[in-house]
């Protein structure tokens, strides 16, 4: 299996996701042959099974998070591949780029608290029948870190109900029984319907705010994000 990570100026989780993908695909963190790093200024991309838009502050988040990256040369190719059905995963800033590029519905607004928030959150897997989530059970809860300033997912009410009917909600923030976080704290950014991640209609594109690559190794204090990557490997390899 071959994965491609897009590198925008200001991406800062490109290496993190490369390491986690290499481990998931090749079983070794130093085997980078299975992961191509693709420069934003390129307009072509080699054959690939998975395209990942990593986290970071592409173009400094100037104008609007993800807005400028969505118009970079490589994104025309990403959109074309997505239309062909190639799996596309956007994490954090990558999720913002996917909404700006029109590959996913909705938009990501500044957090309700107007502050950057970095901490572990609990999310519930809402749909496990997809290439991204087949290694999870529906209803399973995961502990994964978020780190963002603009993570408040918003979509108009009628679009939201259509998405709910089509099972496009991938993950929702939920209360952690153990720490008893208040529901306001459980949803770290004020997202509508507690949404942490969404699919496109065909379930071939996923965008999410939590960082699975930061919960993919025992040293991270939890490995709940690892199964997202191994889901992709078992679906695409």
């Amino acid at each position, binding site marked *: 299996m071959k994965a491609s990570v897009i590198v925008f100026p200001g991406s800062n989780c490109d290496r993190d996701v490369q390491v986690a993908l290499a481990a998931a695909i090749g079983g070794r963190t130093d085997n980078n042959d299975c992961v191509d790093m693709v420069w934003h200024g390129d307009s072509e991309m080699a054959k690939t099974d998975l395209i990942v838009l990593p986290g970071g502050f592409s173009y*400094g988040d100037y104008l609007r998070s993800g807005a400028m990256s969505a118009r970079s040369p490589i994104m025309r190719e990403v959109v074309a591949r997505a239309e062909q059905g190639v799996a596309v995963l956007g994490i954090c800033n990558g999720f913002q780029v996917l909404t700006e590029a029109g590959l996913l519905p909705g938009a990501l607004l500044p957090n309700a608290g107007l502050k950057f928030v*970095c901490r572990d959150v609990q999310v519930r897997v809402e749909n496990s029948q997809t290439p991204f989530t087949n290694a999870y059970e529906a209803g399973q809860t995961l502990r994964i870190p978020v780190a963002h300033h603009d993570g408040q997912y918003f979509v108009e009410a009628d679009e939201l109900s259509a998405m709910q009917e089509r099972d496009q909600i991938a993950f929702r923030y939920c209360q952690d029984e153990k720490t008893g976080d208040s529901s306001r704290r459980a949803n770290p950014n004020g997202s509508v319907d507690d949404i942490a991640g969404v699919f496109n209609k065909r379930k071939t594109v996923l965008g999410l705010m939590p960082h699975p690559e930061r919960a993919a190794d025992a*040293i991270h204090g939890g490995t709940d994000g690892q199964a997202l990557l191994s889901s992709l490997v078992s679906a695409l390899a």
Partner: protein
Amino acid sequence: MAALTARHFLAASYPHLPKGLALSNEQNITPAQIAEHGLTTDEYKTILTVMGREPNLTELGIFSVMWSEHCSYKSSKFWLKTLPTEAPWVICGPGENAGVVDIGEGKAAIFKMESHNHPSFIEPYQGAATGVGGILRDVFTMGARPIANMNALRFGAPEDAKTRHLVSGVVAGVGGYGNCVGVPTVGGEVNFDPAYNGNILVNAMTVGLADADKIFYSAAAGIGNPVVYVGSKTGRDGIHGATMASTEFDDTTEDKRPTVQVGDPFTEKLLIEACLELMATDTIVAIQDMGAAGLTCSSVEMADKGGVGLDLDIDKVPQREDGMTPYEVMLSESQERMLIVLRPGTEAQAEAIFDKWQLDFAVVGKVSDTGRFTGRLGGEVVFDIPVRPLVEESPEYERPWVEAEAPAPLGSVTAPMGHMEALQALLGGADLSSRRWVWEQYDHTVMADTVRKPGGDAAIVRIHGSDRGLAIATDCTPRYCKAEPHVGGAQAVVEVWRNITAVGARPLAVTDCLNFGNPERPEIMGEFVGCIKGIGEACRALDFPIVSGNVSLYNETDGQAILPTPAIGGIGILDVLEAHADLALRREGDAFILIGATVGHLGQSIYLRQLLGRAEGPAPAVDLAVERRNGDFVRSLISTGRIDTCHDISDGGLLVAAAEMAMAGDIGLTLTGIDDAGFWFGEDQARYLLALPESEAAAVLSQAEDAGVPAQTIGITGGEALTLNDGTPISLSELRQKHEAWLPNYMQNA
């Protein structure tokens, strides 16, 4: 000195600065201009001798920034020379952009801590942000990829009208910059004290990782080699920042806002990637970031270290706006800029890399054999200064100092309330409450190598691609330094050493960030000298050399100085990442063991200060031999895998440390000990708390006895509450609620 703002100054000076100001221009430097540049009459006389003629205004500006306290260390260097800076594992000590330490397996750690105090008080967001940006550049300039940021922040009293605004702005600025560049901020300190009402402290530390055989230095070499400018364009921001950082504040402080630089972390991120990409090629002779005093300081330092001259072509410097004078170009502190000496013929290769990252790249000069620092505008020479004297004739003062008076012994202390009540007051107060509100605004998990998050004794980051780790800690207890500078200086070092030890790492080296008041006052100079002596002794005794640092003086407003605050940042190595300890209790039924002697020292304690309103008595004694013995014992237990739960005892004493362990692990604790405030809240040094399975306790206690280390079992873990001497238990959830509530509640009213 006369109150001066850059704005006033430049407005006043424009008429004298025709474009292309030539040396032949008749122009008399007035005494007012000398004073406005923060130079004394004697210093100006030295300039006349060095120059052999009257300087023009640009040259005067260059001298003024190079000889400012901030750049020349003129009040401090006499004493800095007394600090220990060497060890077999030190690759590069003070004098370069940052310190470099060999950490084995072909890797080096590069680190430094630096202050950005004055700008942060004037403009907290940008001041703090550019402080982070500056220290990052110091580290990646030397070839390292930055892997962790830390910070030490000190604010005025919570009641002070400006404190909330400053906390909010500084925290957002630290986060705004570090989060965007993608370097995790893994820990730090936040303290409040009325002594910082008019001068907050923002000290930022960066740790980077490099190949030990690929370190880049700043000495220019190779006559004729191209001098290249990369990064952002030069604008009119931050002119005279170094001079501002070398004066006291008064009621005109607000007017200094234009001297604060504006940061662009996105450009910094591109600059990191471009520089590291360039460093992987064989093109660089020398490289230096433009920090304080901008293009002037970087050029002069590179030329001086290489024993060469440097010719600059000012027309070629990328400029943000039209019509900038040479004076402005040379003194601008615009951010995110670097100066590089390239091997001849590699310009095109280097330029392609900066083009790719969409950064400015310009050949702005060349290395010369004249030994002079020369600038031309439109072909005309606009400054021409001999390099060596500019650096070596810079003033050095052995300022008069008086030893601080020894504090009176602490009188009797009557406990104002029960111990559990006191614990709740302390954990729920300004000094010891949770800093979660702060560190949740910092991305502490980016780079995916963070092993231990903020809130513990030392942060731990994995050395990327390996099974080893670096432990990083910053510390300082200013109230001890005020009471007894010598003891306080030593205590700051031992506490960092203890924090690193408490996670199981082997302490390697430190950086210092020395924040004091006006050194021209003998009592302030006495605090500085006392602290330096204490720091030096502790570093020597612990084999913990100082490899980099920074001095920030004149932290005073209207004659009111800050507490002496020699912040210390240290690093240690974990040879086996898995063999580390954490403060969170892990198991029920563990024996809870106190390591180190407890005499119950309440002098200068948080207990005394917060609950009784008394800042009295001597600081707790620091015994360096005991510190080392106890620490080495604890570390050996952790590194051999026998202990996984450990916390050092510091501010607030034993009961506070124990409660922190219980809250972090969400496991209760039943404690027994004498019914005395000194026992539970005293701040005796060289102490740790351990938790380990009951079955192994006897062996550890007897091993301690053999090593001459005081050790006693003081409790057992389990349940959901904290209980003291069969008293009424307090539930952990109630305790946590109080501990977590103070800071968010305080900031909610911002």
